[in-house]
């Protein structure tokens, strides 16, 4: 199902990313020629009236228009390369991709697959285990026992305990459960961003390149280009790389690290404390607790820190690139306001 979804998505992306350059190129060419003609006329007039400052500005504007034309050709080539570049194979060779990742997928398909895999296989697995632990901890019966003192009518002792392991461990589980809810939310926001990234890339870069031709909208165009490159190229690249590593390493660490190592030691300590009263059931629960804690620790680290890392890189890129091409724009400011 995911594969069909991704396939149709990528096919539409391929044509969508590159079509503006072929479709809009004649319009851009006409605009640039028109601008250069007008500028040349103004340049001649400024020479007659002796305004060297206007001449200097016109020269810069003509260079900028020509540069805009070069930029359109560069980004046209870049978009075509972006759709055909099989980043999935490269990452799989480095063991930085999820198991069964689609071979020869482009950057968008690979990023979407890795994020999907992490959310629906690893994060969901941690959530299910935690849910099972919560049930196990809170499972219990309340018994009420009353004993009459023999020989004395109406006098007795009673006790009504609840037989469950709830307590600070439930506190841990509740915190973990709340955190997982937020982590799912962070991943869904990333899903929206990744799904939108090719569209943002195609639309914003096309508009940005055209806006860069005209003097009054040059800084706005530069900012759009920077934002489009940040979200449309840098962000999917970082997601592919970071989540690919987590997806690949999870199952190896799960069998070698998360299970079977800590449980035995913890169990022996508990047994020594309880003076040999630990049972088979206790050891299973303790091992399971340690497995859930380790898995949750790894998933929490990956879910909370990787978006942070990716967003820092994207934001720095957008800030500095937009500064070089136009007006400075902060991606994080936009994102935090949306969130």
């Amino acid at each position, binding site marked *: 199902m995911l594969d069909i979804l991704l396939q149709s998505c990528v096919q539409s992306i391929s044509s969508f990313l590159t079509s503006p350059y072929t479709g809009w190129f004649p319009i851009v060419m006409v605009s640039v020629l028109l601008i250069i003609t007008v500028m040349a006329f103004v340049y001649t007039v400024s020479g007659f009236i002796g305004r060297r400052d206007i001449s200097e500005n016109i020269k810069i504007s003509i260079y900028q228009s020509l540069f805009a034309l070069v930029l359109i050709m560069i980004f046209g080539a870049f978009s075509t390369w972006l759709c055909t570049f099989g980043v999935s194979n490269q990452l799989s060779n480095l063991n930085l991709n999820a198991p069964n990742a689609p071979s020869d997928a482009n950057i968008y398909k690979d990023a979407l697959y890795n994020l999907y895999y992490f959310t629906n296989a690893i994060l969901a697995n941690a959530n299910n285990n935690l849910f099972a632990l919560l049930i196990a901890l809170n499972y219990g019966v309340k018994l009420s026992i009353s004993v009459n003192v023999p020989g004395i009518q*109406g006098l007795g002792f009673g006790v009504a305990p609840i037989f469950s392991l709830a307590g*600070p461990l439930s506190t841990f589980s509740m915190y973990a459960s709340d955190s997982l809810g937020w982590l799912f939310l962070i991943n869904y926001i990333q899903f929206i961003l990744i799904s939108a990234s090719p569209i943002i890339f195609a639309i914003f870069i096309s508009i940005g390149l055209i806006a860069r031709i005209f003097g009054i909208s040059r800084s706005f165009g530069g900012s759009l280009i920077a934002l489009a490159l940040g979200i449309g190229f840098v962000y999917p690249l970082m997601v592919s790389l970071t989540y690919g590593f987590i997806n690949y390493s999870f199952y190896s660490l799960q069998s070698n690290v998360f299970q079977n190592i800590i449980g035995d030691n913890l169990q022996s300590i508990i047994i020594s404390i309880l003076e040999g009263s630990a049972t088979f059931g206790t050891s299973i629960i303790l091992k399971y*607790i340690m497995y859930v804690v380790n898995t949750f620790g790894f998933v929490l680290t990956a879910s909370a820190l990787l978006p942070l890392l990716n967003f820092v890189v994207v934001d720095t890129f957008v800030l500095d690139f937009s500064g070089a091409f136009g007006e400075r724009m902060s991606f994080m400011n936009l994102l935090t306001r949306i969130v």
Partner: protein
Amino acid sequence: MNRIITILVILMLIFPSFSFAQSSSSSSPASTACSELYSSLSNIYAALRSTSTYSGLISLSLLIIMSVLTIVAVLYAVGTAFKIESLKVFSRNEILEDVLNFIMIIFISGGIFAVDSLISGLAQFSSSAFSSTSTQGATSLTTIYKNTCIFYYSDAISQISYIVIMSINLFTINLVSTVSVMLMPNGFGITYQPLAWYVSLSKMIGVLGAVAVAIAGIELVNVFLLSIIYYLFPIFLYLGILFRSFPWTRPIGGTLLGLFISFYVFYPALLYAFSYITQTYSPKISYSIFNQYINLNENINSLESISPLSPTSAFSLVASSTAAVIAVSGINILGILISLIICFDLIEAFGDLLGAPSLSDGGILRRLI
């Protein structure tokens, strides 16, 4: 009865901190887990650290540097010929950036091992201030990461076992708190629960347990963060150099290099030094708090001989014993926080130096944190 239960509770609470204080030996479960953590992904380790993996990236970086140098040289010539000062300044800066890139490529051309030696040196230098023997563990990059992992993992396990034991204690406390004496002749009378105040004690343990949960969570995250840095971050060095080669992508290159230098080089070295401080002094701190607890217990016992203050003694003892368990871990958490703050500042400084001024200007990291 109260005193026996209280002492039982205290012994149960105090026990794990001592049993795990010594748990960083080579055969401890934390040691086994960390050894597995730093060896089970050997294929990723080999792939991401081999120079041959990046030969294409390095060649591409060199090609871009040479192309940019040629273009910049032409621009400098044009600037000189037409006396365009801004073009000359831009060209001079670009030439300096390219020279810096070239030096970095030469530095890592033999592999990332030059960086590894730098980390070992940093860790040995920072930890030598606390213990002469501590530098023996900082002989290689993997040992530094592994020893730091063992330290924080064993402390996290001690917190988790403390939480488990508290749960068992809570079960006992809840059981005892429901004991009642009933006087009901003809089905009507009174029920007296002498230990009902234990419910408050269980709530107190629940609140203190939340602190232990937070500490265990932060330490576990730190353990796995270190492993992610160890395996994944070498790729940022090479990607950073590649992106830095091209003027327009210099900010992202600078950011990746800043992240690499701060977190791959300085973060483990700082944590290693901090772990040695607490490893050296934590038994003393635990012992000191335990002694205070003994004194407190004696004082309360003498008070109880005058007046029955059992609830007070139970609350005080639970509080002091919990302090003994989480005090050392609290210092560890401080070590993590201080290291993170230093590294965030370093990212900004290195980012600024390597072409990503927005890391410091925009205050992105502060805004995110």
